[in-house]
């Protein structure tokens, strides 16, 4: 395996006495699409800004290709950033915006123009080259912002919630544009977002941050199916989280007693101790429903509270008589067989292998 492109080595950033991020220890691999995700205030933007040199780490080292970057000024780095607000220069035309970075690097006018026009063309906005930024639509501005960064032909592109200001249908379009670009150019993308759908749709790997620390690093599938801890499980959302006490332990499974009943879970690599507290999750889409009680296995009897439709997928929100909440996600056509109404009582069940024990932190 080749040397990672970027290494964060025990990086910490304080603003006065406020610790924005701490114990940042991760690497960014050459050519990957890395998403950094977390709720607002989790330190994801600070992490990105440190990579761009707009903030200096208080403790630790950031290395780019083995070179320590802590004291390299932002304008001496090759880490263009696509800003949440886009930060396009309002006094320049679309083409002049794209040329800006090249001009700063001392590229001559003819080459600047040629490269800027090539990128505007690639982004499908060549016809707006000589228009002022204020006359462009949200989607067009987005493309100018991308072209302005990519024209620098960087090794790494930083993106700070670039799609958060766009309409939902444009977001989907731009996601496709971004993933295609990343694959075509083969450059590393570091994408900061609070949107799980954006991160999971585009990223090769995702870093989940909470309260200034990394909560989990993994592929979208890892994070979705096997959240490392309660924070990630809750942040990812469509998970059922049950907590109880370890009643019995065998080689590869455990019996956990919760107020809602006893459940069997695979232990995976998590070390459990008999008699201690433990939590586990089951992804909402791995829970089955039935009107009759299943004969064996993990099951819970619940009352339907409400339903939520998103396209052909429906999420059921349920509660058992002990107040434990459950979520079930399924295809709408699958659900229609049951003819359910809120208040109806049904059985939930899941395979033991679907459950995932959390590391208590």
């Amino acid at each position, binding site marked *: 395996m080749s040397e990672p492109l970027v290494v964060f080595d025990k990086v910490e950033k304080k603003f006065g006495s406020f610790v924005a991020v701490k114990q940042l220890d991760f690497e960014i691999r050459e050519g990957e699409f890395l998403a950094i995700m977390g709720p607002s205030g989790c330190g994801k933007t600070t992490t990105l800004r440190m990579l761009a040199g*707009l903030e200096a780490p208080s403790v630790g080292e950031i290395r780019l290709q083995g070179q320590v970057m802590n004291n390299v000024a*932002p*304008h*001496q780095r090759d880490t263009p950033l696509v800003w949440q*607000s886009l930060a396009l220069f309002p006094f320049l*035309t*679309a083409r*002049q915006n794209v040329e*800006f970075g090249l001009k700063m690097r001392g590229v001559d006018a003819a080459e600047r123009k040629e490269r800027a026009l090539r990128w505007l063309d690639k982004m499908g906005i060549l016809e707006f080259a000589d*228009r002022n930024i204020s006359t462009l639509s949200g989607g067009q501005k987005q493309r100018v912002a991308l072209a302005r960064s990519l024209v620098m032909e960087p090794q790494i592109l930083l993106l700070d919630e670039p799609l958060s200001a766009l309409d939902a249908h444009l977001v989907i379009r731009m996601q496709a544009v971004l993933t295609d670009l990343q694959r075509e150019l083969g450059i590393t993308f570091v994408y900061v977002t609070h949107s799980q759908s954006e991160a999971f749709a585009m990223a090769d790997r995702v870093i989940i941050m909470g309260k200034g620390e990394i909560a989990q690093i993994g592929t979208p599938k890892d994070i979705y199916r096997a959240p490392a801890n309660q924070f990630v499980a809750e942040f990812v959302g469509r998970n059922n989280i049950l907590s109880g006490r370890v009643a019995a332990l065998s080689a590869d499974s455990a019996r956990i007693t919760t107020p809602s009943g006893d459940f069997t879970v695979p232990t995976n690599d998590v070390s459990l101790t008999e008699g201690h507290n433990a939590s586990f999750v089951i992804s909402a889409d791995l829970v089955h429903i039935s009107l009759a009680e299943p004969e064996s296995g993990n099951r819970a009897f619940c009352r339907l509270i409400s339903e939520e439709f998103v396209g052909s997928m429906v999420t059921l929100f349920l509660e058992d008589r002990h107040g434990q909440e459950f979520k079930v996600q399924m295809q709408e056509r699958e659900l229609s067989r049951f003819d359910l109404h809120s208040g109806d009582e049904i059985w939930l069940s899941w395979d033991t292998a679907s459950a995932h024990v959390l590391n208590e932190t």
Partner: protein
Amino acid sequence: MPFKPGRNVNLYALTWRLPIIFWQFVFFVGPVLFMVAMSFFLVKNYRMTEAFEFVNWSRMLSRGYFWDSYWYTVIIASVSTVCAMCIAFPAAFALAFRASESTRRWAIFLLIIPFFTSYLVRTFSWFVILSESGVVNAMLATIGLGPYTMLNTNFGTLVGYMTLTLPLVVILQTVTMANIDKTLVEAARNLGCSAFRTIWQVIIPLSKTGLIIAAIFCFILSFGDFVAPFYLGGSQEPTLPILILDTTKSGQQWPRAAVVAIMMMLTLFAIAFIGIALAYRKPKGAK
């Protein structure tokens, strides 16, 4: 009485607007019209008589001393504007980008304080500092320099102009630059622009409107100021305000003074018009 909403609203609006319209007519439009009319009057035996003659205009505008004074005033007001803008910029830059919000607020408060005292008093205090036996020359003497003549020179006039304009120019520049979206400055840095270069590349273009308005104010104040060129410049070369004073004093030539005043107003109108047109000019490619 039947209720007519439209009519009532108009009356209501008019009632509120009336004082300002009245004020404008009585104290601005009226006097200006009178001054224009007066520039065509004649002075006979030191007394002004109503007439409609172009003799004041042709006399003033054909005199070398008028044009000497005119161009001297335009040039020294321009120099004053350039000086004030340049001296104010580093201070305003520091207040806008380096100072904290509360420091900035205090600084603006302190910059307003000079306006509490009379400009004339502040001008007189320069005598103590700039005269041949003043503070500056006393300090220079300790290192074997001087004494230098600073009063009754162009330098003295400029010091006076700075006393008048600098606090205002610093305030206007600070407020303008403090309102810049800092992300744009960071974006420029991110694209390879050094901190110093962002001033020309981003900060000045972004604060263009406010900077031009600060410059217009500075020019207008300097151009029309009487105190600095008279007391600190010693009216060596008379500026237009001094020329107006001299003209009225010498033989009660109010009509000729009116000609000078109208020329000044026309010049300021032109400067303000061009300046504001530049300040609000749409960037390239805008609709």
